[in-house]
């Protein structure tokens, strides 16, 4: 760390103020001012670093400034690097990186909407998280109370980019969709069948989650984390608990780490199976979906017997898990996995047996590897387009540091690649669960409860079934949080769908969208 910091200080003597590593593996570099452009370019070029996320914090009451945080992941390095950048409240602005790094486009605009800090030079500085007809408020500022009652809607919701020309028209879809899915608006501009471009409008399910985190006692906030994205309840809950544990220095017992790992993988298995069926369904292969639904029920039944809830709510807690398992429950894992594995093999054979299905999935919704890298795509969508990232392997947590597994990566970037990533991952996950069960240590299933000290910061990352889930917290007085930043992988990945749809046809949208299966609620919070 020292040499890295000295090198950085030599290179940017004006900007770099100090460095600290209060939590092992999280290097925080404090800068003097908001201009990060040079350092960011240096990181990207010298370390093949990836800008993971950008977020802000209101510290005006405590320190008289706002902070922007830029989180970097350096290739082959276990440590995260976090640039901490003060922004004076009298000059509430920061230089935008979005023109160079499209990955931060939405995240910078979130900072504009929620904190009222201007992203100077942003190529599209319009509102994103608060819709156009919201009054001029900045909800994540400390002087904005959570329960503020805003005046009713007025005026136009959003003005989409116009399109002119013979035969060119808009197809507006949503926010209420035809299927049983979450709300969002897709505005297709088409010339006949081909799509000229797609405009997205998200944040329909914005429900003040990050603000609400600051208003709940920490033990209750675990349940809120489970409700950030309901299909990833256990991953989000675990990521939140890990952040608190790191901040407070709570040692999670080995058994709890293994129990968490098993449940994280079961969540992946259940959701991947569901997606494999849904992708088949969207190209009219209904029977495959029916089988997938049946196999998924087997996994959910197992989850219920392990946690009391089909979707594994109310299980993870700070310091471990709420309930330990009896011998019979552990045996049920092996028995169910044995049946699931056999059924899954048959399901894959069914999906792959159909040439017409293969025809529809190959070369559909292609996201080229260079575009995926440029847009900062993570998770399944990234690995199907050559982006070889997996938090479980790159920044191991829980029991993953003791387990060996393969991370499937495909280069084609089409719907079929995203299907194949899921198929491979289900098989890997079954083996991970088996290994974790075989090596399940004895001992307590949770650490004793202890007070959480104020003013500690920590970040945690979990590879949810969609991809990299990130939490950053600052603890406050009275067992509460000062700030909780939530980044679901979906926030990174929505631009991929825009990219894949250009030049495609409207009829391919549903299956392409399903092959990413991004969370609206996780994006909108």
């Amino acid at each position, binding site marked *: 760390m020292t040499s890295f910091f000295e090198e950085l200080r030599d290179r940017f003597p004006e900007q770099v103020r100090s460095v600290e590593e209060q939590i092992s593996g999280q290097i925080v570099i404090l800068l003097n001012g908001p201009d990060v452009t040079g350092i960011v370019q240096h990181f990207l070029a010298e370390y093949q670093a990836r800008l993971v996320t950008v977020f802000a914090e209101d510290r005006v009451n405590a320190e008289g400034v706002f902070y922007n945080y830029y989180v970097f992941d350096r290739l082959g390095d276990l440590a995260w690097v976090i640039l901490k950048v003060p922004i004076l409240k009298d000059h509430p602005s920061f230089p935008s990186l979005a023109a160079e790094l499209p990955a931060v486009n939405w995240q910078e605009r979130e900072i504009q909407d929620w904190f009222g800090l201007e992203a100077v030079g942003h190529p599209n500085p319009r509102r994103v998280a608060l819709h156009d007809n919201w009054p001029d408020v900045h909800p994540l500022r400390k002087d904005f109370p959570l329960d503020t009652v805003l005046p009713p809607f007025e005026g136009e919701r959003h003005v989409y980019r116009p399109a002119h020309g013979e035969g060119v028209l808009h197809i507006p879809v949503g926010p209420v969709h035809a299927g049983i899915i979450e*709300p969002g608006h897709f505005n297709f501009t088409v010339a006949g069948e081909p799509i000229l471009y797609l405009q997205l409008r998200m944040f329909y399910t914005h*429900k003040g989650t990050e603000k*609400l985190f600051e208003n709940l006692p920490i033990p209750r906030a675990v349940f809120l984390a489970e*409700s950030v994205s309901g299909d990833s309840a256990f991953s989000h809950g675990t990521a939140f608990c890990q952040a608190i544990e790191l901040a407070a220095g709570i040692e999670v017992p080995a058994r709890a780490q293994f129990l968490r790992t098993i449940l994280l993988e079961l969540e992946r298995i259940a959701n991947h199976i569901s997606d494999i069926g849904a992708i088949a369904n969207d190209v009219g292969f209904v029977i495959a979906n029916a089988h997938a639904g049946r196999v998924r029920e087997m996994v959910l039944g197992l989850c219920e017997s392990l946690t009391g809830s089909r979707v594994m709510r109310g299980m993870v807690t700070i310091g471990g898990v709420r309930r330990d398992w009896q011998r019979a429950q552990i045996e049920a894992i092996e028995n169910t996995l044995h049946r699931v594995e056999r059924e899954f093999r048959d399901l894959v054979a069914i999906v792959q047996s159909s040439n017409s299905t293969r025809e529809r999935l190959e070369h559909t919704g292609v996201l080229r590897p260079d575009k995926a890298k440029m847009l900062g795509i993570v998770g399944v969508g990234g690995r199907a387009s050559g982006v070889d990232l997996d938090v479980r392997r790159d920044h191991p947590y829980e029991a993953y540091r003791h387990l060996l597994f393969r991370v499937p990566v495909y280069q084609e970037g089409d719907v079929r690649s995203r299907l194949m990533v899921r198929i491979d991952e289900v098989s890997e996950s079954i083996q991970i669960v088996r290994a974790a069960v075989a090596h399940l240590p004895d001992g307590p299933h949770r650490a004793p409860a202890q007070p959480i000290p104020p003013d500690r910061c920590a970040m945690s990352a979990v590879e949810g079934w969609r991809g990299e889930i990130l939490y950053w917290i600052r603890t406050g007085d009275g067992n509460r949080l000062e700030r909780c930043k939530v980044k679901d992988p979906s926030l990174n990945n929505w631009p991929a769908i825009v990219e894949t749809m250009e030049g495609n046809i409207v009829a391919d949208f549903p299956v392409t969208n399903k092959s990413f299966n991004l969370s609206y*609620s996780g994006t909108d919070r």
Partner: protein
Amino acid sequence: MFKILQKTFSIGTATANYPRIAPHLAEQFRGCPEFDFEAWRDARPAADACPTGAIAVSDRDSLRKVTVDYGRCIFCGECELASVDGAVRMTQRFELAASDRRDLILTAEYTLHPDGSHAGLQLASRGANVEEPEQRIAAAIHHLLGRSLSIRQVDAGSCNGCEQEIVSLNNPVHDIERFGIHFVASPRHADMLLVTGPVTRNMELALRKTWAATPDPKIVVAVGACGISGGIFGTNYASMGGVDAVISVDVYIPGCPPRPEALLHGILLALGQVRQRMGIEPAPRKHQAGGIFRVQT
């Protein structure tokens, strides 16, 4: 093709026959908590532990009022762990759908002692779910043949948890189509809106428009703790709370998320109401909703 047929035939019937046959529940499954109001010495620890505020305690003079709202409950079991007197117990009950919001709320009144403890249960409400679901469902199914129900699902701001279980209704195990019930792509084709929440500020208008686009007679079912009350999100600058803050609701289905059988139970309960409105079936006797009765002491 032959292999697909062979596989499908080898499975046989995957469908569970709910509600005729009770579902297979894991021993560990958590349904709603049950409260022994007479034995409950102190409701405050449970109220403090409840993540959604489903248990509330209010003191005035020498009176303590305890309210339990199954419309906020997420079945987490924290109240059972927090209560030392054993008066709160998790059950496996999940068929909690009710057509009257008040049916989901229990109240008890105690004499408050100066030290903060309480005793002497004075009043307790009759309890949640006073409707007779089995009879109602049996009647609905009996009349069902030849009739169908079209549902438009509306996510008005949910976390996608309820959607996961609603999607499960379409899989072969729960197979909602065996009742002639199916999900449709447009509100214009729908008899029923199945709405999850909390209703966000950004979805309010879309929900109103969807409701307006649904032909009469229509029925609205609010799903999950958030759909009923706003759940853990409650009401804030971005959340309007439960569905009935925006449109009127006919049936409420508690849970977080409600398991597929709980959803089926609520939908079938609502189906009885559709039929009443269409004049196919007489209205049942009005039950005594949330009636307070005096406890014999």
